[in-house]
């Protein structure tokens, strides 16, 4: 971070702070704060991650290649892209997946939630509350929590490896199902692995509840999927705390995307209302009643109500979701038929000229895809709306709310609080289109 003074042409002394790196996030971004006469006049999250043009390079590609290609949007949550893709493809071609194949998709998503949330909790987020530079530094005084987190992360990754061959960019997902189904011995070993870390998940949740959390709340409009019976992964309607309730195909009726000059990520807003929040806080608030009673009790024990509007407490909500994902994975594994691998690994998907929409709950919020296909199943146009681009506007409002009471404090204090408030939402910046560069201008 460098601090400099300049006149900025206004005649008044202007102070600017530049932080060359927002750390412990995924991707590249910068933050600009402008302070004028003791007032915060602008707070901008500037994403300068180089554009990779996925929607363009998908044009002309086969539906069979789509989940492999979209996985490469993000190394932390490839499954989210694979799942939204296959659901959009199946929607276009009139296929609905039920039974064990549907259950296995939920299981794969459990793996991604566990590994991604555990990574976020112990390696990216918890150090903020402990005043440490990184998760590795937790080994000395918070070794149990670190080891719990790493063990959970490993177990989540084991789900991805057994079902998909590897942790990052698994290879098994295809339209209609999977390329190969896990064998009985593999499933039994996996169930043992998850059962062995289940207690760690409960312990980690209780530990996150002991972290010192700032008193801070915001009146978010939460948006998440909601399913009639389940805590949402792959399916549901898009609902909001502001009364929204629509089919995923009608996304454009309620939401609009727009481009801001300061970002390579498209922003999104609710038509007529503005910023909204997706991710763990939204899912939890809108789907508390879909959590098993024991996990609801754990949430209460961890100091959460049925709705949590404190973004710093998102670390507790993530931990609760890890508990849920572990329990759900065990439930799914136990319910799979013994002769699973004797069945078909996928159902045939016959392409046709059509449009399809898919929307699933990535660890950081819902990820919406829409494809228009030619008769041969090649993509004519693609649209992908990832969680981080949806949350950009809300993150900017959080930054404003966090920074405003601190304007008379030193630049370093403001920087630390701003960086923390970004990590509350754990932006997956590569998804949305890198290090945070903070520039504070005071005049």
């Amino acid at each position, binding site marked *: 971070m460098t601090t400099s003074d300049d006149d900025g042409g206004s005649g008044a002394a202007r102070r600017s702070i530049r932080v060359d790196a927002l*750390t412990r996030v*995924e991707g590249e971004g910068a933050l600009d704060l402008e302070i004028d006469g003791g007032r915060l006049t602008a707070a901008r999250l500037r994403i300068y*991650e180089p554009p990779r043009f996925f929607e363009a*390079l998908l044009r002309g590609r086969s539906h069979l290649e789509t989940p*492999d*290609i979209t996985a490469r949007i993000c190394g932390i949550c*490839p499954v989210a892209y694979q799942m939204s893709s296959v659901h959009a493809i199946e929607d276009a071609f009139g296929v609905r997946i039920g039974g064990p194949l549907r259950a296995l998709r939920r299981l794969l998503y459990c793996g991604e939630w566990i590994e991604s949330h555990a990574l976020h909790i112990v390696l990216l987020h918890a150090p903020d509350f402990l005043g440490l530079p990184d998760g590795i530094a937790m080994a000395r005084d918070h070794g149990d929590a670190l080891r719990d987190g790493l063990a959970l*992360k490993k177990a989540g990754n084991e789900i991805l490896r057994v079902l998909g061959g590897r942790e990052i960019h698994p290879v098994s997902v295809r339209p209609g199902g999977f390329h190969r189904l896990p064998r009985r011995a593999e499933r039994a070993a996996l169930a043992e692995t998850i059962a062995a870390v289940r207690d760690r998940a409960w312990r980690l949740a209780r530990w996150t509840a002991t972290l010192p959390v700032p008193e801070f709340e915001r009146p978010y409009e939460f948006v998440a999927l909601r399913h009639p019976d389940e805590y949402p992964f792959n399916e549901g309607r898009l609902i909001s705390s502001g009364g929204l309730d629509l089919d995923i195909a009608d996304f454009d009726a309620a939401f609009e995307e727009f481009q801001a000059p300061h970002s390579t990520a498209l922003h999104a807003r609710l038509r007529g209302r503005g910023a909204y929040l997706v991710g763990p806080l939204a899912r939890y608030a809108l789907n508390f009643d879909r959590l098993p009673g024991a996990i609801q009790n754990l949430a209460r024990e961890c100091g959460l109500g049925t709705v949590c509007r404190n973004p710093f407490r998102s670390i507790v909500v993530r931990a609760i979701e890890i508990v849920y994902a572990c329990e759900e994975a065990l439930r799914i594994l136990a319910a799979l038929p013994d002769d699973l691998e004797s069945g078909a690994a996928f159902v045939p998907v016959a392409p046709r000229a059509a449009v399809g929409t898919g929307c699933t709950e990535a660890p950081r919020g819902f990820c919406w895809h829409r494809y228009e296909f030619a008769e041969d199943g090649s993509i004519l146009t693609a649209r992908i709306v990832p969680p981080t681009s949806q949350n950009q506007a809300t993150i900017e409002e959080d930054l404003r709310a966090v920074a405003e009471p601190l304007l008379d404090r030193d630049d370093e204090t403001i920087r630390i609080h701003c960086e923390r408030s970004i990590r509350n939402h754990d932006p997956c910046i*590569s998804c949305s289109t890198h290090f945070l560069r903070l520039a504070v201008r005071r005049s």
Partner: protein
Amino acid sequence: MSTRPRLAVWKFASCDGCQLSLLECEDELLALAQAVEIARFAEATSTVLPGPYDVSLVEGSITTEHDARRILEVRAQSRVLVAIGACATAGGIQALRNFGDVNAFAAAVYPSPQFLATLATATPISAHVPVDLELRGCPVDKEQLLELIAALLAGRRPAVAGYSVCIECKRRANVCIAVQGTPCLGPATHAGCGAICPAFRRGCYGCFGPMETPNMPALTAQWQQAGMTPGAIRQALRMFTAAAPEFAAESERHDD
């Protein structure tokens, strides 16, 4: 001052998956953090120490003027520079723009493409600066990554094979899916993944890029016999290492 080797991790255009592979070493992470001094690894730590660095791991491809300048600075600060992953060694999936018109790509995605600063190409790190070692894969294999770091610590060359996925597939005792009629890039693809795709009953899609001296015409002739159209052959070669010279040249041979 620490006498441990100083490690830096850098990101260019990528999905972060290759550097994330380091964090996926759950069992080895703490040992790794003791064996090397993590001087710069933005995704993992807020500690940012100035160069020079003994080893730089570089992820991602070069797609902007800014990054083309930044990689020169990274090289200048690094004793050993290792390019990790398909983006850093072959341009990655975003190198598909090299076969098209980047302005058309931008216009297809952004309402106001004039706000973007981007190059017409996505190029590997070696196209810009001398690279000491390359580790393939989309993503890199974490065992290979650990082998690379262990070798660098021991002052030896890493044991990374140059042969094809076929050898790994035989070791894994997979039944050959190409023989069963499924087009597979395994015979031409660099080893390293452990032949995952054939083990999952699908053809290799070449995410580790071309092996040393692949026989591309022989492979595509076999694909043609299996019924693949020139268009399908071209697409199969244009995936995560589309700009690797061997795959790029063969895909152009199958242009309409």
